[in-house]
């Protein structure tokens, strides 16, 4: 694996995470339980799609084959995607969506904080810009998780169920492979074991305030960020997200 291959792979992971989660969150538009949450979720989705344009735009440059961010988003198939499995999981109920958001935000915040000091200036620039948005995402999702976890019997039950369901998807975000270690050696990407420590500390705080119990099982699904095996949900998501470009290739506004 050349340095360029590793960098491209890493950028696709960053951009695919924000693209797939952004699309997932956008599915709430017009359906959220209250107007205020509807707008907040749409804002989050738009932030994530904006970040995708920067990450995938840079990925296209690094690849050097003339592919744009749009090409990468709309014309790749399931096996080409490099997002973690967590972000492609279905929305479920509102609590499940918010818990998924919190788990990703907590990871994303620490990741971007580290990347804002990356040896690669372009990556550092995108991370710094994204971090302002993600700081707010994390603040909002943490408080909502706490509010619903420590809320009524029903909201507590739903949040605990969401945590039990999504917990096996947390581990994948922190497992380093050859790509991570190669970029870490060049000072471009952070050490994921350090990120995990910070994540665990934050998680413990929020879970205790939310009166939620972390499952003891440490099993972690894998296969998303390497593209080896996505869950069946990604294919369904792509048929929705990509159908227009697939049905009418090259269509523009």
């Amino acid at each position, binding site marked *: 694996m050349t340095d360029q291959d590793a960098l491209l792979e890493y950028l696709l992971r960053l951009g695919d995470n924000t693209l797939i989660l952004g699309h997932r969150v956008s599915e709430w538009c017009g359906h959220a339980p209250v*107007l*205020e949450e509807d*707008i*907040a979720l749409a*804002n989050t989705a738009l932030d994530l799609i904006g970040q995708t344009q920067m990450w995938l735009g840079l990925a296209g440059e690094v690849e050097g084959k003339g592919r744009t961010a749009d090409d990468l988003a709309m014309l790749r198939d399931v096996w080409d995607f490099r997002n973690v499995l967590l972000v492609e999981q279905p929305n479920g109920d509102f609590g499940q969506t918010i818990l998924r958001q919190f788990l990703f935000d907590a990871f994303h915040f620490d990741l971007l904080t580290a990347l804002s000091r990356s040896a690669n200036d372009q990556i550092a620039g995108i991370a710094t810009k994204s971090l302002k948005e993600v700081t*707010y995402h994390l603040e*909002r999702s943490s*408080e*909502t998780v706490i*509010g619903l976890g420590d809320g009524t019997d029903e909201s507590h039950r739903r949040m605990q169920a969401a945590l039990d369901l999504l917990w096996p998807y947390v581990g994948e975000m922190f497992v380093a492979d050859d790509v991570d270690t190669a970029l870490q050696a060049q000072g471009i990407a952070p050490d994921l074991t350090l990120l995990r420590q910070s994540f665990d500390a934050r998680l413990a705080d929020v879970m205790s305030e939310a009166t939620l119990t972390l499952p003891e099982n440490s099993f972690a699904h894998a296969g998303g960020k390497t593209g080896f095996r996505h869950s069946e949900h990604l294919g369904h998501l792509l048929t929705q997200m990509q159908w227009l470009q697939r049905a009418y290739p090259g269509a523009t506004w």
Partner: protein
Amino acid sequence: MMTTEWPLWEIFIRGQHGLNHRHVGSLHAPDAEMAMKNARDVYTRRNEGVSIWVVEAKHITASSPSDKGPLYEPAESKVYRHPTFFDIPDEAGHM
């Protein structure tokens, strides 16, 4: 009957440094902190504000429309209360 609706909050936003907070609308939220966040999402997404105030609507005491006469009409015939009888020197410029 217990209501499951979140309380209503009135939102005030200061658009630029030096200007007053202005009422921009209202929204629902479970508490003041979430009202602040919701205000950020609902009313400042196009870069409108630099400062937000949220006030739970029940804490605002409003004048009643039927009191309009007694409250405001007595001022109408008292033109001398308006500072319009002074010549403003040119040097003072626009006031």
